[in-house]
């Protein structure tokens, strides 16, 4: 509303109620059309000097934390509460709209529902579709923004107080569409005579309390408001962003470990099952650095059998420094017309050699076959290949899990937040 022109604030004007004679202070500009007498509730049409009585409002049953005449500064604009309307949608939803007047920028609506707040201003920006064609969760473009229809409903005025820039009567009805792009909201309101468009954004309770200098805190907001943004503290945001960065690094390292971290082959020894009964020694191989990570890959062409390998890692001039065992087993069959397999003819084990030097492997083993699977089976050929300088990607996986914890938690929280935002409307939509 940058081209909206409002005269400098008029001095406080005072008129007498045509019904009870009570004094009525007028706070708005000459644009005000109607005022409700605070004493008797008579609604006066003040667009002419006659100040005709056009109805009666029973007034609000409860006092609001923002009474008529409350002054404050909202979003940097000094304003005053000059009117208030209560709307009811069906029997479930009730909300208040405070009319704020600022000599600087004119009129704004502060919507209060379930202790959430939205500040609305009239706009000339229209949607790219007819309001009648809009439906729940359909997107609509308004200017450069895209909104999603959150709600399409009708509402009725149930209470009114103070001054208004139009003549509102109790039981006046309007149709409405709220479309959201948090924290923004775009509202279309119409009746049989007029369509109006408003654009606004979510206002936090802190802004209201601070802006109007309220002494007491407000009751906690209920649920998630349609245009309420998902907000996290700056520290959590920073930690989450850091988590994403580290996750990216770990994903990169993980990819590198998978592609290039297989190490280099140092020896490969083949043998038969018979050889392993007496033992096989590999060629010597050099380990150049302390704490070298190596990987032993075993393979054996067992079929419905198993083979067990005992490996002694022997340093040439010192003797055995490490031993470990590994089993290869592979079974296949057909059952009920379907073939199945279990196990693998190949397996591996990672080990670490702490000191540099010349090493060799002493390999012994045994095997089993048949239904009893008893030891003594030697009818297979196998091999063992040693790789050096292998990169263990399990550390990167652990790092990735730790780094992703907070970002994923945030995503989960946001997902729940969005679920709660739409939950009530989905229920209503299903009811319809």
């Amino acid at each position, binding site marked *: 509303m*940058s*081209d*909206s*022109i*409002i*005269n400098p604030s008029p001095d406080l004007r005072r008129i007498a109620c045509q019904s009870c004679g009570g004094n009525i202070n007028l706070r708005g*500009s*000459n*644009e005000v*059309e109607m005022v409700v007498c605070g004493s008797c509730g008579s609604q006066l049409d003040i*667009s*002419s*000097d006659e100040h005709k009585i056009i109805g009666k409002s029973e007034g609000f049953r409860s006092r609001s934390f923002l009474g008529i005449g409350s002054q404050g500064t909202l979003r940097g604009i000094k304003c005053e509460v000059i009117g208030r309307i209560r709307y009811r949608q069906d029997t479930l939803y009730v909300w208040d709209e405070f009319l704020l007047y600022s000599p600087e920028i*004119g009129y704004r609506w502060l919507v209060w529902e379930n202790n959430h707040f939205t500040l609305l201003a009239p706009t*000339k*920006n*229209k949607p790219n579709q*007819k*309001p*009648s064609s809009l439906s729940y969760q359909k997107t609509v473009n308004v200017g450069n923004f895209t909104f999603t229809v959150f709600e399409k409903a009708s509402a009725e005025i149930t209470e009114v107080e103070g001054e208004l*820039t*139009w*003549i*509102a009567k109790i039981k006046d009805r309007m149709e409405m569409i709220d479309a959201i792009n948090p924290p923004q909201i775009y509202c279309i309101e*119409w009746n*049989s*005579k*007029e*369509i*109006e468009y408003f654009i606004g954004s979510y206002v936090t309770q802190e802004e209201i309390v601070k802006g109007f200098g309220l002494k007491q805190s407000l009751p906690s907001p209920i649920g998630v408001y349609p245009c309420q943004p998902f907000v996290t503290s700056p520290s959590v945001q920073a930690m989450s962003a850091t988590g994403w960065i580290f996750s990216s690094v770990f994903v990169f390292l993980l990819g590198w470990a998978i592609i290039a971290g297989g190490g280099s082959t140092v020896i490969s020894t083949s043998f038969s099952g018979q050889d392993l009964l007496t033992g096989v020694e590999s060629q010597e191989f050099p380990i150049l650095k302390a704490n070298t990570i190596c990987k032993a890959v075993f393979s054996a062409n067992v079929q419905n059998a198993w083979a067990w390998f005992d490996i002694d890692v022997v340093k040439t001039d010192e003797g055995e420094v490490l031993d470990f065992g590994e089993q290869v087993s592979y079974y296949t069959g057909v059952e009920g017309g379907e073939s199945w397999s279990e196990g693998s003819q190949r397996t591996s084990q990672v080990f670490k050699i702490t000191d540099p030097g010349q090493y060799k492997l002493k390999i012994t083993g045994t095997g089993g076959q048949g239904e009893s699977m008893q030891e003594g089976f030697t009818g297979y050929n196998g091999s063992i290949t040693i790789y050096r300088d292998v990169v263990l990607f399990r550390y990167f996986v652990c790092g990735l899990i730790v780094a992703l914890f907070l970002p994923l938690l945030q995503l989960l929280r946001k997902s729940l937040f969005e679920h709660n935002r739409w939950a009530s409307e989905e229920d209503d939509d299903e009811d319809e």
Partner: protein
Amino acid sequence: MESTNCPSCGAGLNLFSPLTKLVVCAHCGSIVSIREDKLSIKGKQSGLAPTVSGLQIGQSGELEKKRFTVLGRVRYKYDEGHWDEWHLRFNDGSECWLSEDEGEFCLEQPAKPSKRFRSISEVELGETIQIGSWNGSVDEKNSAECVGFEGELPEEFDVGDKIAYAEGSGDSNQMFTLEEDEGGVICFLGKWVPLATVTSNTGSKF
């Protein structure tokens, strides 16, 4: 400018426009009809409440780089509010209507929509109206009543005159009005005018 006197109170009436058909005496409020240079009293008019802008009869200003003088005003009232139509005369002799509604100005010129209506009842809320290459949609369809006027006006008005109208806007900074009169529905294409561009002859902004 032509000077004459109010046939009721004798106060001077300065007529700025040769097109004036109606003038309200600023002194006694008499409504004076001007037909073939003959003045006749039609009644009396009480004062009109000021508008949001504070624009006044006799003030000068500038619009679209042309100097103007405010000659007259008509106020219309509808169920939910009211608006004012200011009658302006530019220094080049042309005249126009400047609407003031809810603190905003709209400069209107007659226009021809692609679709002709015989009455406002044919117009639908939300209907697209094409005027030349410009498109707008109907935002409001209502009826209003003339509740007063002041100054010099180029046609006759009566308090209580009723008009049926529709108005709407489009993407650009323009709006349109459809008004029903005896000959059918007439159309005006308007442009929102920031008041900041309407400077008074003293240089101050209204």
